[in-house]
């Protein structure tokens, strides 16, 4: 790396990006652009910290065309964390309904997949797939940011 390259990369925190996935989910037709709306359906917030990291400078999901947005109307993908609690089932369903079609759901973390350690809790309704159709799952308790980024890249194809 030459001097100019060193100057250019001074202060750069982002890790080098892993290689691009072969192709995204063809049904989504997103073409390298993913807008994400995040719903915490009852998580312990461990996964939220990792999702936050995924959009932070180190993993920088934005370089893959992934952005968090403020309204489900703008979103293509719903990331859901945590087991779905009784109180959050309705809002989760409403959020999914509020997304324009086609909309995808990414279940982030073990709790979202199978309720994890909270399975059978009195306030727990069930995994995310019981409430809304899940397209992609990200295992882990919590999953690594890199895994979350990889899952989102898998959706968008970039």
């Amino acid at each position, binding site marked *: 790396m030459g001097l100019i390259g060193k100057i250019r990369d001074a202060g750069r925190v982002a890790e080098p990006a892993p290689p691009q996935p072969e192709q995204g989910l063809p049904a989504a037709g997103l*073409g390298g652009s993913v807008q994400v709306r995040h719903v915490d359906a009852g998580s312990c917030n461990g996964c939220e910290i990792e999702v936050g990291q995924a959009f932070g*400078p180190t993993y920088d999901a*934005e370089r893959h065309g992934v952005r968090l947005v403020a309204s489900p109307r703008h979103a293509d993908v719903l990331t859901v964390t945590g087991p779905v609690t009784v109180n959050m089932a309705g809002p989760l369903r409403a959020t999914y309904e509020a997304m324009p079609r*086609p909309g995808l759901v990414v279940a982030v973390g073990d709790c979202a997949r199978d309720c994890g350690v909270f399975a059978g809790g009195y306030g727990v309704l069930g995994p995310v797939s019981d409430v809304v159709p899940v397209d992609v799952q990200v295992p882990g308790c919590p999953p690594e940011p890199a895994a979350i980024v990889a899952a989102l890249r898998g959706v968008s194809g970039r």
Partner: protein
Amino acid sequence: MIAWITAVAQAVLVAAVAPLLIGFMRAVRARLEGRAGGRLVQPWRDLRKLLRKEPIIPADAGMIFTAAPLVLMATSVLVAAAAPYLSTGGPLSGVADLIVVVGLLLLGTVALALAGLDTGTAFGGMGASREMTIAALVEPTLLLAVFALSTRVGSTDLGAIVAAGAADPAAVFTPASALAAAALAIATLAEAGRLPVDNPATHLELTMVHEAMVLEYAGRDLALVEWASAMRLTILLGLLANLFIPWGVASSPHPAALAVGAAVFVVKLAVLGGLLAAGEVFVAKLRLFRVPELLAGSFVLGLLAVVASAVLA
């Protein structure tokens, strides 16, 4: 005929460049924050995807909600076609008037504000109320800057102002001009909804202005709104650039001159956009009720510009 082709070319160029400008500004910002950042064409990818998605209309909204993105887009394209970006000899001299341009941009703002109210949500109304308050307070600054600029040539015709500036550089580098540029720059920030007046990247509804009005849009409606917003930023930065750095704008309809004009225009945009993005990294959004103070400051600058142009002329 050539003038009309130029106008169409201008509109197409602005429409094509606008998303790239947004992408460039995001890239500059990402780099300054130590991130890698997205590609330059990412906003174009976003638009392509949004155009394919399903638009949604809230249950209680009517015609205005669906018409607003179209009006916003129409005003942006009309201004982009008429104003002197590539050439000073546009065919629509009756539209390329500073006051008309200000009015057309305001019409777009109004359309979006009405759409925000039409959704019937609290956030939509909140965004509309704030946007209209800011728009009302920006107006005096804009027109005072117009006053200062137009006295130089005795006309509010944009083409005439730019052409006169390019022909007589001494008239551009005057105290009045500098003050007007500062006033207009602040007004541009407010009009385009950039920091410190409005944060385009905010996710917190209570701090939103522009975003709050468009929360209900989806699919191709959202694509039009985002595209038009990008075009408005391009239009405003382009005007700022051509009014105060008027060189490179073609004064004849020669294709070579137009090509040079296009290249210079893109460079000017990149410089201004880069500066804006770099500046935004270092400032925070102002409290809403501090914004009038900022705008009052810009108003005073505008008034000083006018007085300076009258006294020092």
